[in-house]
C-alpha cells in the first residue's frame, strides 16, 4: 500500500519538467539577437570603409527601421516580403530536422509557382473558394513532386541531396524559360517569355485594400500562419514528424527502431518541396500575378538563411522570416533616403548567418550576455 503510494509519488516526480536551462535560452534567443546587433555594427564599419560619413550611416539605419516597421505601408511590405521566406524556410527547416540539407527551395519555388500560375489562369468561371485553393494545392503538389526527385535519388542511389537539389535548381530555370514560351501559356501578343495573368478568382486577395489599395499585404500571410501551425504539429506531434526528427538526429537509431529510411527521406523532401511550392504559389497568386523568368528572385536561397537563423524551429523560422522581410523592405528605403546601396542588406544578412553559425564568436564579443561556459563532465 505505502510502497504503491511512494511509487506513484516517484512517477509524479518523474513527470515534472525541468525549467528550460539557461544554456538553451542563450542558444535560442540571446545568440540570434546579438548576432543581429553585431551584423549591424559590422555593416556600419563596412559603410565607413566605403567612405560613407557617419551622419549618413545614422540616417541609413533610421531609414532601415522606418522603411520596415515605421508605417502601415512599411509593415505591409515587410509582411509581403516575409511570407514566401517563411513558407520556404519552413520547408527547409523540416528537411534539416530530418537530416536533409536541401538547397533546392529555389527550384521548388519556380516549379510550384509555375504550376500555380497555370492553374490560376486556366479554369475561368470557377468560384474563388474552389479556384484559389486549387491553385495553391497545384503549387504545393508540383513543388513536392519536384523535390521528391532529389529525395528519390538519395534514397535509391545515395546521390547526395545537396548536389542533386542544386542541379534541379538550374534545371528549373530552363524549364521555366521553355514553358513560358509555350503558346497556351505565353501571354498573347508578347514576344518575351511571360505567362498569362492569374484570374481574379485565383488571386490571394489583398487584406488591407479597404484602407489603402496600395497596401499589398495579402491573404498569403494567413497561409503562412497556418503553415507554421501545421509544420509545428507535424514535427512535434505526429508519428511521421517523430520519424523525421529521429532520422535527422541518429540514422542508426532510426533504422534500429524500424523506421524506413528511404520513405522518410522521400517524405521529408516532398514536404519541404510542398512548402517551397506554396511559397512560389504565394508569390504568383499574391504579388506578381504572373510568372516571368527569375520570378523566384533568390527567395529559395534567402530561405536557407531564414531556416538556419530560426534554428529549424517553426516559430523561430517565422521570426527569422519577418526579420529578413523587414531587412529587405527597409533596405529599399535605405537606398532612397540615404543613398546607401541595397547590397549592404545582403552583407548584413550574410553577417547574421556567420555569427549565428559561430556562437562562440558571439559569446567572445559579448561575454557579459552569457554565463561562463562550462566543460561538461564526460562520465
Amino acid at each position, binding site marked *: 500500500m505505502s510502497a504503491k503510494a511512494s511509487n506513484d509519488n516517484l512517477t509524479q516526480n518523474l513527470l515534472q519538467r*525541468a525549467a528550460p536551462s539557461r544554456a538553451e535560452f542563450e542558444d535560442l534567443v540571446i545568440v540570434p539577437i546579438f548576432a543581429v546587433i553585431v551584423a549591424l555594427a559590422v555593416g556600419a564599419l563596412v559603410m565607413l570603409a566605403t567612405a560613407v560619413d557617419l551622419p549618413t550611416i545614422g540616417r541609413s539605419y533610421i531609414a532601415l527601421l522606418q522603411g520596415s516597421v515605421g508605417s502601415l505601408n512599411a509593415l505591409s511590405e515587410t509582411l509581403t516580403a516575409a511570407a514566401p521566406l517563411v513558407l520556404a524556410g519552413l520547408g527547409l527547416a523540416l528537411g534539416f530536422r530530418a537530416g536533409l540539407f536541401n538547397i533546392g527551395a529555389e527550384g521548388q519555388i519556380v516549379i510550384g509557382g509555375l504550376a500555380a500560375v497555370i492553374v490560376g489562369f486556366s479554369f475561368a468561371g470557377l468560384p474563388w473558394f474552389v479556384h484559389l485553393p486549387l491553385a495553391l494545392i497545384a503549387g504545393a503538389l508540383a513543388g513536392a513532386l519536384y523535390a521528391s526527385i532529389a529525395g528519390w535519388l538519395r534514397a535509391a542511389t545515395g546521390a547526395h541531396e545537396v548536389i542533386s537539389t542544386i542541379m534541379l535548381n538550374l534545371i528549373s530555370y530552363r524549364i521555366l524559360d521553355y514553358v513560358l514560351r509555350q503558346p497556351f501559356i505565353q501571354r498573347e501578343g508578347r514576344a518575351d517569355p511571360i505567362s498569362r495573368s492569374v484570374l481574379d478568382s485565383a488571386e490571394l486577395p489583398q487584406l488591407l485594400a479597404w484602407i489603402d489599395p496600395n497596401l499589398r499585404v495579402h491573404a498569403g500571410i494567413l497561409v503562412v500562419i497556418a503553415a507554421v501551425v501545421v509544420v509545428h504539429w507535424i514535427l512535434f*506531434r505526429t*508519428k511521421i514528424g517523430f520519424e523525421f526528427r529521429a532520422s535527422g538526429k541518429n540514422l542508426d537509431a532510426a533504422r*534500429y*527502431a*524500424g523506421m524506413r529510411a528511404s520513405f522518410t527521406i522521400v517524405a521529408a523532401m516532398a514536404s519541404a518541396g510542398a512548402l517551397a511550392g506554396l511559397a512560389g504559389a504565394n508569390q504568383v497568386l499574391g504579388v506578381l500575378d504572373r510568372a516571368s523568368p527569375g520570378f523566384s528572385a533568390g527567395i529559395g536561397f534567402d530561405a536557407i538563411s531564414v531556416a538556419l537563423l530560426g534554428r529549424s524551429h517553426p516559430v523561430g523560422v517565422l521570426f527569422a522570416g519577418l526579420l529578413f522581410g523587414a531587412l529587405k523592405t527597409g533596405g529599399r528605403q535605405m537606398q532612397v533616403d540615404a543613398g546607401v546601396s541595397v547590397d549592404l542588406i545582403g552583407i548584413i544578412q550574410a553577417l547574421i548567418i556567420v555569427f549565428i553559425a559561430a556562437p562562440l564568436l558571439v559569446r567572445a564579443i559579448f561575454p557579459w550576455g552569457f554565463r561562463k561556459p*562550462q566543460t561538461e563532465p564526460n562520465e
Partner: protein
Amino acid sequence: MDVELRGITKRFGPIVANAEIDLDIRAGEVLGLLGENGAGKSTLMNVLCGLYTPDEGNIIIDGKPVTFDGPGAAIAAGIGMVHQHFMLVPVFTVAENAILGIEPTKQVDYLDLAAARQQVNEIGDRYGLQVDPDARIEDLPVGTQQRVEIIKVLVRSADVLILDEPTAVLTPQEVEEFFGIVRSLRDAGKAIVFITHKLDEILEISDRITVLRGGRVTGYGDPKTLTEQRLAEMMVGRPVRFDVDKAPYNPGDLLLEVRDLTVLRANDEIAADHVSLEVRSGEIVGIAGVQGNGQSALIEAITGLHRPVDGTIIFDGQDITNVSVRARHAMGMAHIPEDRQRTGIIGDFTVAENMALNSYYDERYAKGMSIVWPAVATHAADYVADFDVRTPSVHAKASQLSGGNQQKLVVARELSRDTKLLIAAQPTRGLDVGSVEYIHGRVVAARDEGDGVLIMSSELDEILALSDRILVMFKGRIVAEFDASKQPVDRNAVGLAMAGSAPRAAA
C-alpha cells in the same frame, strides 16, 4: 616518479565530480583504481592528464607541486594515458603511429622513419612489447594494437602510465599476456594506474587498490587480503550478488531457427559464414567470441538491420529472412543493440521519447497520425520507476544519463512489452557492477517467464554466468558448442575456442 594527488576537488556546475580525493601513485607499483561509472574515475584521470584544472587540491610530483595548463604539460611531466578506445591511425604503420605528433625529422622536415623504427624496437625489447614496426595497424589484432598504444606512451618517455579499462577488448588469454607486460613495466620502475571495474583483474594485478564512489574515495585496500565481495561493496555501497539465480533449465518450443546464414560486411568480406543455431523458449543461448568475429553481423541479420546473402531465419514458425525490422518487433522480438550510444538511444531526445523510440506507433502511444505525448510520458515514468533508471525526469535528455542508466533505459524499453525473444548484444558493456547485476537479473527473469534469449558478449564471465548453452564464434563460424545447463563449463576451454585454437568441442 611518484605522483601524489592531494584534496582534488572538481565541480561541474552544481555537480561535484571529485571531492577531496587523495591518491598516491608510486614508481614500481600498480595502483588499481576501481569505481562504478560516474564515480569520478575519468574526471580524476583527466585532472591528472591536464585536461581539466582542479577547483581545489594539488598535484605533487616527486615532492614538488605542479600545475598543468593542458595535456601537453602533463605529457612533458611524464604522465601518459592509454585510452580505452584506441587512438591509432589504421592505415599507418606501427612506427608511424608511435611517433605521431613528435616525429623525429632530419633536414627540410624529412621524416626519419629509421629512427622511429629503432625507438619502437628498443622499447619492445626493454619491456617485452615486441611489435613489427612496419606492420599496418589495421592488419593487427586488437591485443597488438593495444601494445602499440602503450609503446606510443613510452616513446613520449612516460613514467606514469594510466591504463583505462585496458582489458575490455581482450580475450582471456590476451589478458594474461597483457598482465605480463604490465608487470614488466612495473618492474622497470614505471608507475601504473590500472582503471577497471573487473574485480578479479584488479585483485590479480594491483599492488594497492583505491575505490571511488560518488566522487569520493570510499576505500583503500591491499589486494592480498581483500575479497571480490568486499571490493564490490566498497564500490557500490551495498552488498552485491555475483551469482545469478536461475530457475531450473526447462526449454520449451523452438522459437528461433537460423539455417546456414551468411552475412557480408560492407566491403564484401564474409562476416558470418553459414551459421546455424537454435533458440528455444525458456533458455539463454550465449554467443561468445572476441569482438570482430562476425557476431555483430549475425545479430544484425537476425534483427533485420542487415540483409543476409544466404540462409534462412525462422522465428515463431515464420520465415522472417526478408521481413522488416518493425514486423519482427511486432512479432515479439526485442533487441538490446550492441552500441547504445550509436543505435540504442538518441541522446538529444528525452527519456520519454527514447522510451517510445520503436513503438511510438502502437496503440499505447499513437492515435491516428499523432503521438499522444502525455501517454508516452506516463508510460515512460512507469517504466523508469520499474527498471530503476536514474533520471530526474522523463523529460530530461537521454544524453544526460550515465551509461548504466542509458542501458537500463534500453532494457526497460525492450522488456516493458510482451516479447517472446530477447536478443541482447553486449548488454552490460562498460557498465558498473550494480547495473550489471540488475540487467542480468532482468534478462534471467525474461528467460524464467518463458522468453527465449540470445545473448552476445565478448565478456566471457557474462556468457558463463547467464547461458544455458554456449556457442563460440571464431572467424564467422560457430566453432564450438558447450552445454551449460547441468554443470559449469570449463572457462579455459571456452577461452581457447574463442582464440580459435580448440578443435570442435562436443559439449
